[in-house]
């Protein structure tokens, strides 16, 4: 009780940051509150990064010896893999169904071969599991980002929310919008940094008309999948996102204009 009062009385909390590179991307953590740089914080950070490394070992399509690569080549069955594989494939299958096929864990390679690639689901899922380690930090807020997709927690409603900048896909040195997030997730799909690696699974081709889609949701797994699926819908990105219950977000079109999507509000 006393802790809460003290925390509320000291809104200007110091933020401490950590960065490591895992899964080929920067993992950034910001902590504020009681445990920001003590042993507990370091242990939680180590545990969180260990989870991400393990996810990389299991799911990386860049590693020929990962479970997912061997599964994709037919060398293993799901029963030979850790149970997380089935969980992730189920998430991917649900996303495929809910996106009417625009999202898929089966990627089409350039040569036309179908490859198993659940990375569109894995990142959000893995980061949420890693964040569970941070949730054990008492009286501590966190914002954990993996290459631009993040999940945040704020314990005390009186402190300022995390402020998430949404980058301009045409100029990643600028931001187009700010999302204040107390507790929740933000994910963005686009091609600014990696070139055209996202395709509409229905056609195997890059979507047109859209530059990036940012989705705000309670769960990063859902935000990540919805951002990817919405992006795959191309010019229908905003319309599709509107159909998702409770989602909101920002669609940046390839001409630089933007559309904000918010949940359909009932008449009051």
């Amino acid at each position, binding site marked *: 009780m006393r802790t809460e009062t003290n925390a509320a009385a000291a809104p200007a909390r110091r933020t401490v940051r950590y960065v490591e590179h895992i899964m080929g991307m*920067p993992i950034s953590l*910001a902590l504020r509150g009681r445990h920001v740089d003590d042993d507990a914080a370091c242990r939680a950070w180590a545990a969180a990064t260990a989870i991400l490394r393990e996810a990389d070992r299991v799911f990386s399509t860049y590693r020929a010896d990962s479970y997912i690569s061997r599964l994709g080549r037919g060398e293993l069955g799901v029963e030979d893999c850790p149970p997380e594989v089935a969980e992730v494939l*189920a998430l991917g299958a649900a996303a495929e169904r809910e996106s009417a096929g625009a999202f898929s864990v089966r990627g089409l390679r350039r040569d036309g071969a179908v490859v198993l690639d659940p990375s569109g689901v894995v990142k959000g899922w893995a980061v949420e599991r890693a964040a569970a380690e941070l949730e054990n930090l008492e009286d501590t807020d966190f914002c954990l980002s993996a290459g631009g997709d993040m999940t945040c927690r704020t314990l005390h409603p009186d402190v300022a929310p995390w402020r*998430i*900048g949404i*980058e301009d896909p045409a100029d990643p040195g600028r931001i187009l919008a700010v999302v204040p997030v107390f507790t929740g997730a933000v994910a963005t799909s686009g091609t600014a940094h990696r070139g055209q690696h996202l395709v509409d699974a229905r056609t195997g081709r890059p979507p047109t008309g859209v530059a990036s889609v940012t989705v*705000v949701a*309670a769960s990063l797994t859902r935000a990540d999948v919805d951002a990817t699926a919405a992006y795959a819908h191309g010019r229908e990105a905003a319309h599709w996102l509107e159909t998702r219950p409770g989602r909101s977000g920002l669609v940046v079109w390839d001409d630089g204009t933007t559309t904000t999507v918010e949940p359909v509000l009932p008449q*009051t």
Partner: protein
Amino acid sequence: MTAVKKIVLWLMSTLTVLVLLFGYHTSTSSTASASGESSVVVPVPSGTGTTSSDTSSATGTTSAPSANSTSSSSGTSPSTSSSAGRAATSTTVTGDSASTRWGPVQVRLAVRNGTITDVSVVEYPSSNGKDKQINARALPILVQETLKAQNAQIDMVSGATVTSDGYLKSLQSALDKAGL
């Protein structure tokens, strides 16, 4: 075990079958988003020094600048429309209160020399405990085309996936360095 074998056989052909078989995984791992989750999008007037005055609900009541305002002295000017002024002026502009299902949400811009220097949320729905709980997830998105990153006071950057190769020149990298 035999059931698992069957799953293996189906995996490559029809992944949608897995939805039915493993549906409980999906539901357990996404309970947080099953209900109540939501967020709010509040457009910010994109001109400089102008309120969105096209509706009569503009309140014109701006209280003291929020804690995270910069040192720019913020005069309150709820209906300034002279964006062409060259003088070094600081203005605080408050947008219309946007009506949401949980109550009004209102945002405020600090404008200095025609540049947005700060965006803050001045009004969250908070009339009762339930609202406050929902509000923990109610996340206004503030769209401001001219918002400069260096002025935005942001904690993290969301964008298309940054690879480790591209990280060094990324905004997030600058943020991480600043915080170390």
